[in-house]
């Protein structure tokens, strides 16, 4: 009995020593709960508020101002300014600058005071149904209670039901609120992030682990030749994965594809390169395939949680949004959803293309600085 305890003790001690030596694993054990707690506890919010809202006002009066003030104070809508044409409104929704456009038509105030129940149009970007639904659900109530204050004196009679305005809601891009429309294109980004980073970092680290790297370095190949030669095959892999996901999205899940395929191709290409650059950088740091896996996971976890894939991006506090902006996945999700669901054009997508370009330049620079053509 005692000797069994002694042997268990010996193994226990050995495990503790090894655990302490493997700093990356040790770091993960400490950091993963901290990151998860921070993200889920503080950053993630499934009831997003302060959504950017633009006004298209063809009529302006005390009544309209009461209405907009009511929207603002509800904390769901954050009035960012005005647009001056229906085309401009569409453009802002496509680019993602606005989540809502509230249109008050000409003659609204007069019709309202006559008790004609005039219409207000609210166009909502419903490409992410969960981000828009709460605000949309609240809007009638907010409008009615805001307008009530103006219905005093001679107009007090309008306070009765039916409500004094007719609110028309257009759920743009995804009128039925089908969550697959949002998730399936997003999955493309998640799948590419996971596999591209993991495959490159592991493929490179495997060569170091098996000693092939020493052999390769003893041959006259330049660092950039090795890097290009190793990355290009995986670009092909990424493109095949993209084709599979897109075919499934369109045929299996009936996700609409209304935009320019070439714009999406550009986005996919850049996104794949960005992830491969990350994978290559990891492979210059990791000493074993196991470490490469751990680093992939470290990058993948916050990418997925902070990019707007799982939870509405706009629901997160500013600091989390700022971190989220770093990840290429955040921008890629906007591109793939923008192109497929909204038919966004080059101009609308440029604000999401350049951050990926910058990411590629930085990641490739780090990779090249870290990559050694010697064994030092």
């Amino acid at each position, binding site marked *: 009995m005692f000797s069994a305890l002694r042997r268990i003790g010996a193994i226990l001690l050995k495990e503790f020593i090894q655990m302490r030596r493997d700093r990356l694993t040790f770091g993960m054990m400490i950091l993963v709960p901290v990151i998860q707690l921070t993200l889920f506890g503080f950053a993630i919010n499934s009831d997003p508020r302060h959504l950017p809202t633009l006004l298209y006002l063809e009529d302006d009066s005390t009544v309209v101002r009461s209405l907009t003030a009511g929207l603002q104070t509800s904390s769901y809508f954050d009035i960012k300014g005005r647009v001056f044409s229906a085309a401009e409104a569409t453009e802002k929704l496509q680019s993602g600058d606005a989540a809502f456009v509230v249109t008050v038509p000409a003659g609204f105030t007069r019709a309202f005071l006559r008790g004609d129940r005039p219409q207000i149009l609210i166009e909502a970007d419903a490409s992410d149904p969960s981000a828009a639904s709460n605000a949309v659900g609240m809007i009638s109530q907010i409008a009615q209670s805001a307008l009530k204050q103006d219905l005093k004196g001679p107009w007090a009679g309008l306070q009765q039901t039916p409500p004094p305005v007719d609110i028309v809601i257009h759920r743009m891009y995804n009128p039925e609120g089908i969550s697959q429309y949002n998730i399936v294109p997003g999955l493309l980004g998640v799948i590419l992030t996971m596999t591209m980073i993991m495959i490159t970092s592991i493929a490179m680290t495997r060569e170091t682990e*098996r*000693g*092939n790297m*020493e*052999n390769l*370095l*003893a*041959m*006259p*190949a*330049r660092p950039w030749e090795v890097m290009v030669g190793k990355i290009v095959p995986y670009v092909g892999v990424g493109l095949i994965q993209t084709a599979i996901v897109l075919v499934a999205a369109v045929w299996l899940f009936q996700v609409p594809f209304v935009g320019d395929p070439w714009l999406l191709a550009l986005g996919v290409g850049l996104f794949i390169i960005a992830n491969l650059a990350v994978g290559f950088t990891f492979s210059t740091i990791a000493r074993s395939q196991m470490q490469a896996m751990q680093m992939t996971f470290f990058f993948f976890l916050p990418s997925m949680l902070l990019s707007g894939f799982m939870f509405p991006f706009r629901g997160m506090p500013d600091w989390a949004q700022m971190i989220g902006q770093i990840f290429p996945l955040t921008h890629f999700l906007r591109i793939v959803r923008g192109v497929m669901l909204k038919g966004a054009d080059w101009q609308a997508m440029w604000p999401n293309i350049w951050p990926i370009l910058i990411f590629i330049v930085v990641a490739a620079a780090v990779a090249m600085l870290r990559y050694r*053509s*010697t*064994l*030092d």
Partner: protein
Amino acid sequence: MPQAQDTAIDVRGLTKRFGDRVAVDHVDITMPRGQVWGFLGPNGSGKTTTIRMLCGLLRADEGSGTCLGYDIIRQSRQIKRDVGYMTQKFSYWEDLTIRENLEFVANLYGIPKRKTVVDRTLEDLGLTSRQKQLAGTLSGGWKQRLALAACTLHSPKMLMLDEPTAGVDPQARRDFWDQIHRLSSQGLTVLVSTHYMDEAERCDQIVYIAYGKLMTQGRVDDIITQSGLYTFIAEGAGVRDLMERLRGKPGAEHVAYFGNALHVSGSDLSALQSLIAAEGRAPGVAWRQERPNLEDVFIHLMGKSGGGQ
């Protein structure tokens, strides 16, 4: 000083540090072309590090010099083109076939008439029928032959072999050395590190490194002569008891077994003789003096270098 075209390696003050540890400490080597030189020394003595610095895999922290006439710091690309380097551990791709490995190497060096060269190499190796076998499934001896073929595929001017025969059976070891001498007779310069004394004796010259420092270099005979060492050998039934009695006594600088013979060496002949007269008597033990062998000299050198860290 020999002319650059006769010199394969000419380095001065070669030094490499890893953190606080000095792996190679101011090593000078001048090696003529066309010879076979052996690199000897205990484990961790800096043999591999020195070879890696010479062929451009590691950057020397101090020192300068040339390898095949190219600057070892600035022209490592040219050196890599003209040197065939065989790593200590098999480092070709185990998940590629024998043929694919050779074709990859041929492609990377831009060898003309690639297919013919690979075909001929496979034939020389006797691996034509197994060319589609994965390299990882080869036995140790075959892996080593494949590695030698692969690192000579681009017709290098110099070979650097890092413990090529470690873990290889005696017959394969002999075949390997016959191959090295064949290559050398074709004009190739060969630098080979080893732990085996019989291999060291097949080298034109040897360089002995211990704990980063170059201890001695020269022909085997010269090294033995220059050591100034005297060796007495005891054989017989009672020899096992003698080791403890002789070790650490004045005159006996080294006491070591070779097979079942006890070698006692020292540089002071009279002290050694009187020690053996006093302490060396045991039943059935016969003493004789012999010329020290290379290993006696190396054990002596290792002791002189102060042991490992």
